Structures are given as structure tokens and as C-alpha cells.
């Protein structure tokens, strides 16, 4: 599903964010990316949703080389990818419902179908009663669930998450992790960048460790039986 071949990325001439990265993530996999700040986790994710283009090497998503997409092709790529961030990136002047519906509006859905599908995903996230509130009035965990609803409402092939639990307490972390796993079970490839050791350890998934822009360690999924618990 996701393949990186000899990918290098530098923001400026001297400082390289990623250095000769080779990586392959299969369809339906659940992967954690970890490493200290500045290791290149965010840069790697940004490459995957077309916000950055590599200086060298190739990035393939579903067999398609996205290293040199034109400006008009990038939106098409992003419709197949859901992205969530540590700071949620919700629009404060719109309601929870509107924040989630944006994804379907962009796809050109009709009003009635947007209503049904949006309420359905809000129910899955357990926040359907808050649909008419501004995100400002929700807790951090609820806001992240709104962001996840927005990312997952069109059943994307890939879900990318950049420090999704950075602002959350343990109870909320577990809820968010559960949502990731459920999306993964439905067939979405999930890539989570985090330096939250506890989150990684309790989920027993494939782990990729980055250090100074290079992959220094890869640990395969520890026990297959873990997946059955969800």
C-alpha cells in the first residue's frame, strides 16, 4: 500500500529531514512510527499525503508514484487518505457536524446522504449528542474524536495520525487507540507517529523507529492473537 524507495528530504541544503529511507507498509497494516523530536516522523507523514515532495527517491501509494504529483492531482490523493493531528485542526466557527461533513461536501455528496453518514460516524465515535456544538465546548478527547470522524467518514484507504494522543489523558488515549484499531479492522491501513511508549507497548503493532532521518529499527507485530481482542 505504501512504499518508499531511497527517499531523501531536505528542507534546506544542509539539514536533511529524511535520509535514504526505504519502507514498505502492506494493505491493512497497523504501524507505529516513533523516534525523538526532529527524527523525521512528521516529515514522513507529510510526504505520504502530498504536503511535501521528496528531493530524491520515490513514494508509492497503492502502486501510484506520488513523488511528482501535479497540483490538481493532490486533492484526488487526499480523498483516499484521512489525516489527524495533535492539535486536531478543527474549525471553531463551525459545528461538530459541519466539521465532519466537510469531507463529504468535498466529495460532492448530496445533503441528505451527508446528514445520514455524518450522524452515523458521530454515533460510532460516541459524540452524536454534541453534533450541534462548537468544538471549543468539547473536551480534548472529544475534539480528537471529531477530527477522527472527519478523517474516517469517507472510509479512507489510509489513516495517518501525527501525535494523535499528545494532548490527551490515559482514558482518552485508550478510546482513540480503539478507534484506530476498529478502522484498521475495517480495512484501513493505519500509520501513527508517536513517541508515546505506553501506547506502542500496549497495542503490540509493528514499530518503526526513526533517528535523525533514518530508520534505525523495525520491530514486527509481536503477537497475532492481540488483534483478536478487538
Amino acid at each position: 500500500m505504501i512504499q518508499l524507495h531511497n527517499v531523501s528530504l531536505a528542507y534546506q541544503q544542509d539539514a536533511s529531514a529524511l535520509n535514504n529511507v526505504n519502507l514498505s507498509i502492506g494493505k491493512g497494516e497497523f504501524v507505529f512510527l516513533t523516534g525523538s523530536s526532529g527524527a523525521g516522523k512528521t516529515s514522513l507523514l507529510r510526504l505520504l499525503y502530498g504536503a511535501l515532495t521528496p528531493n530524491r527517491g520515490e513514494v508509492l501509494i497503492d502502486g501510484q508514484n506520488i513523488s511528482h504529483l501535479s497540483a490538481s492531482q493532490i486533492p484526488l490523493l487526499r480523498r483516499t487518505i484521512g489525516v489527524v493531528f495533535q492539535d486536531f485542526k478543527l474549525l471553531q466557527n463551525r459545528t461538530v457536524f459541519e466539521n465532519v461533513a466537510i469531507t463529504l461536501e468535498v466529495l460532492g455528496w448530496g445533503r441528505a446522504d451527508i446528514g445520514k453518514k455524518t450522524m452515523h460516524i458521530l454515533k460510532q465515535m460516541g459524540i452524536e449528542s454534541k453534533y450541534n456544538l462548537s468544538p471549543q465546548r468539547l473536551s480534548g478527547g472529544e475534539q480528537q474524536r471529531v477530527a477522527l470522524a472527519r478523517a474516517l467518514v469517507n472510509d479512507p484507504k489510509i489513516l495517518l495520525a501525527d501525535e494523535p494522543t499528545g494532548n490527551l489523558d490515559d482514558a482518552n488515549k485508550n478510546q482513540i487507540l480503539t478507534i484506530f484499531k476498529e478502522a484498521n479492522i475495517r480495512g484501513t491501513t493505519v500509520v501513527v507517529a508517536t513517541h508515546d511508549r505506553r501506547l506502542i507497548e500496549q497495542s503490540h503493532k509493528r514499530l518503526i523507529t526513526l533517528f535523525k532521518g533514518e530508520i534505525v529499527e523495525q520491530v514486527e507485530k509481536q503477537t497475532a492473537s492481540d488483534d483478536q481482542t478487538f
Partner: protein
Amino acid sequence: MNKWKSKQPVTIKPFRRPSLAGDGYGGRALFFLSRAITNIRQNVFVNVVTIGTITLALLIVSLFLLIFVNLENAAENWSERVQVTVYFDRELTPQDQTSFRGKISALSGVSRVSYVSRDEALKRFKSRLRGQETLLEGVRPEVLPTSLEITLKRTHRDTVTVESFVTTLKRIPGITEVQYGEEWVRRFNSFLNFMRLVGALLGGFLIIAVIFIVSNTIKLTIYSRRDELEVMSLVGATRFFIKAPFLLEGLIQGLAGAMISTLLLFGFFEGFLQNAGSFITFNPTTSGLSFLPGEYIAGILLAGAVLGFIGSLTSLKRFISV
């Protein structure tokens, strides 16, 4: 498109728009319009600031236009005084009058020819010396010349044209003495040209300032909503999809600003200017100013719409990097 297709069945085909209710170009246009109106309602403060700025900016420009148009009208009135007079030392017979009139009217640029007989000339002389009629005691009409007064068309009142007209006039047999107040015509025309130059310069500066202020205000309001642009781009909106509501919003803001400024100008005009304008025209018969003609108002509305649209377009270009 197909190269993106996943081999596994996916519930929603990612980038082909499903043909559901409200689809088609009409549905799209309606969606963008309702999105723009919702945006205005959700960002009231920002919109009030933008519309207010456009209103004030266009009010200044239209006030300037109002003054300029009225000065032009006044100049039009003054230029009626550009008159060429042919003097004769004898009373013209009706046949002579007709023949001269015919010859003169045949020249280009002539709008009116009128004959001033000796009696008429004396009458005018007397009315000019009102209160001192005694000075004219013993003056008989015979000492005054008769004349043909020629009024020129508006387009033929500038110095060069008047001079060449007089030269042609003098070629008509029987016409020897021609007066046309050379100095006055020259001064009047150079004043007019000066006024137009100053007007164009001031107007030009004003318009540049207005474009600058309005485009920067719009830039700031769009900057304040850059998270919206970012989120739209993240969920896979095309540039057009992101821009269209903002452009419509700009168009609505510009039109609203232009309408409000025209209404304010009209109120201001009705309240203060209309009856206070005789000092500009110096002409008691055309007391008062006139409001902007219809095509100017249409121009201001159009300018508002264009200002809002282009302002949004150029600002969006800066913030949408995909």
C-alpha cells in the same frame, strides 16, 4: 482515475463524485452560494470590517467623482461664453442676413448664428450701464455696429479650433472684422486642461490607494481564516472548490460595499450638497449640483464587485499552496 482504484471493494469510490441529490452544475453553484452565505454568517465581524472598508473607500472615490462631474458641468456652462462675433458697419438687409447665415452655418462647428441689429446693440449697451443711463444720452443707434454672433459647438471651443475657425470665417467675402476674446478663450482652455490633469492625478492616486487598502483588508481577513483553507485542502478539496465560496463572498462584499457607499453618497447629496452648489457653478440659473449620472453609479457597483472578487482572488493565491 482508474490507476487509483483499489483492488478491494471500497464503499466509496474516492475521487469520483457520486451522483447523488443536488448534483450537477446547478447543484454545485447553489452549494457554493449557500456556502458563501453561511461563511458570511459564521464570520460576521470579518465581513463587517471588509464591507465597511470597501464602503468607505468607494465613498471617497464616488465623492471625488461627484465633485469632478459637477466641475465639468460648470466648465460646460462657462464655455458658452466662447463666442465669435462678426461686426459690420452697416445695417444688414434681410437678404444679406440670410446669405451670411447660410455661409457661416455651412462651416463646421457652428451651433447658432444670431443677428444683432443696431437697436438691439443699443438696448444691450443700456442694460449694461444700468443706473448710469445718462452717459448714453445723445448716443444714437447709428454709431453702433451691427453684428452676427456665432456660438460654437462644445467640441469646437478649444483655442486651436476657434483660431482656425476665425481664419476660415475671414475668407468669406464681406466679413472683415472678427472678434472672439482670444485671451479669454486661451485662459479658459488652459484652466480646463489644468483642472482635468489635476483631477486625473488625484483620481489616479485615490484609486491606487483604494485598491491597496481593500486588497490588504481582504488579505488579512483571508489570513484569519487560513485554517479553513488548510482543512479543506487536507480533506482533498480541489483549488476551485476551496476558492469558489471565498470568491463569491468577495463578490458579495464588494457589491454590498458599493451599494452602501452609493446610498450614503445619495443621502449626503440630498442632505447637504444639492442646494449648496451655486458657488461652484457661479451661475444662478443652474443653481445646485447634479447627482452622478446612471452610468457612473453602474460603474461604481461594478468596481465594487471587481474589487471584492480580484482582492479575494489575489489573496487566495498567496494562501493556497495545496
